[in-house]
């Protein structure tokens, strides 16, 4: 029997999968970026069906809301026809592309195999929406106690990226070269 949750899962999984396929199949970079947005929203929807409301909202704010808006903006500013051609040619880049897709495919297949090894009768207890606050408190207390090291390291990583980006944009050369 298909319950509402199952139906939602299959619907969202189909949306996520199809738009994900669209990201790599579409020719126009803008179309690819919008497909990626749809798949991000689909993933947020899947988090909702898993009662992970906070993660779903953060997925929307960070990925669908901030990261992808910047992607789309930057893509709109550049005319990417030449880069498209340059990226599609060349033996070295071809080998690299095959290699990276192969590694990714292997990881995905291993993970799908792993999900079959989990006890199929295991079902998470559905959380009451009004208790979403408590699960969020759990997440935050874990982040600030048990996983505080990883959490802080990611903060340092982001700081390094920010400083690196500022430094790169200050170096004269490239499009900012003084003529």
């Amino acid at each position, binding site marked *: 029997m298909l319950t509402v949750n199952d139906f939602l899962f299959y619907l969202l999984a189909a949306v996520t999968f199809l738009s994900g396929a669209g990201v790599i199949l579409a020719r126009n970079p803008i179309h690819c970026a*919008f497909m990626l947005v749809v798949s991000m929203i689909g993933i947020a929807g899947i988090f909702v069906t898993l009662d992970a409301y906070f993660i779903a*909202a953060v997925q*929307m704010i960070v990925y*669908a*809301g901030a990261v992808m*808006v910047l992607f789309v903006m930057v893509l*709109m500013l550049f005319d990417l026809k030449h880069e498209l051609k340059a990226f599609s040619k060349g033996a070295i880049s071809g080998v690299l592309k095959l290699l990276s897709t192969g590694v990714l495919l292997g990881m995905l297949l291993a993970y799908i195999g792993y999900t079959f090894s989990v006890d199929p009768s295991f079902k998470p207890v559905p959380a009451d929406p*009004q208790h979403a*606050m408590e699960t*969020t408190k759990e997440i935050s207390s874990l982040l600030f106690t048990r996983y505080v090291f990883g959490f802080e390291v990611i903060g340092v990583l982001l700081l390094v990226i920010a400083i690196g980006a500022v430094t790169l944009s200050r170096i004269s050369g490239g499009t900012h070269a003084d003529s």
Partner: protein
Amino acid sequence: MGQDAFEITINVLKMLVIFLGIVQAVPLLVWLERRGSAFIQNRLGPNRVGPLGLLQLLADAVKFLTKENFVPEKGEWFFYYGAPVMALIPASLAFASIPLSIPIAIEPFEMFGRTFGPYTFIMQGYDLGIGIVFVLGISSLGAYALLMAGWGSGSKYSLLGALRASAQVISYELALSLSLVGILMVYGTFYFTDIVQAQAGPLTFNFLGKSVVIPWLPNWGIFFQPLGALIFFSATFAETNRLPFDLPEAEGELVAGYHTEYGGFKFNLFFIGEYGHMLVASALMATFFFGGYHFPGLTPEGVSAFWSGVVSGANANNILTSLTFLLVLLAKIAFFLWVFIWVRWTLPRFRYDHLMDLGWKTMLPWALFNTVLTAVVMFISHQ
């Protein structure tokens, strides 16, 4: 959604009413905007069609609907048609998650020879339990409507307007989100109902280890977070792309920005989206900083006692009590909507670099300062 057909029907109807409420508020707001601007500029405004010109907007809607439907030659039809629809989605989803009044408890009753109930209907579209975070997540999708319109129109002005608009929206989203952190810390929750409940009654706070009660002031968030309220309200002006932050549609520079190529009802949908964002911003302002549906002197018990003298029956009493608090919230929303209109016709537009400086170099640091200040004050007062 509910246990039986009656509860599901009511819940579905409730969502429809909220959505239609947003859409129907727009003609009234446009009328208010035009008459209000006329009042501010010492003119008359639309006053010919119907009483006080109220039917002018109906005539406008008919005109919008009968206009020719077209796609620009260099545009992309999917983005061109999708953008106005996308403009409506974030505002209506966000508004439906804000609690509008106290829940209505319905006692068991007889209808069609069956007994229904008891039920409790919440006065909001749905209750996801994550309140603020959900609204921020949904409204961050608003930038896509602008980007889709800019790209789909295939016009330089549209594209430049869309880029400006989305840069502005994501810049001010930071200050907007950070200004709410103080509220999160004060109330210790992001659940709307709890935030509103915490603002009932007279002003109560801890000061140097003593509990202080000021009976002549309401327990509203504005007294705990004045700086947060100021930053939040200013940032919502930028988020809704209204003056003094309406750079995306600066007529002198960009014709009409991202909706240059739009006409007819598709243009009207952008309008509805903008006013929908204003509604959400006003409702959030009322919910976070002005007590939501609470008003000094009105308690659920008191209002219920008043209505029990007018109508008999517990169900009618509960419904009327809830509607009273709904009216309180609507009055607050109406006040903030008027402030939006008032500001639009009072202040001139910023220059673009001033706008970015204000967002990144003024509002963001002050929002961070507000967060730190709130933390320090709370640490001291909870000693």
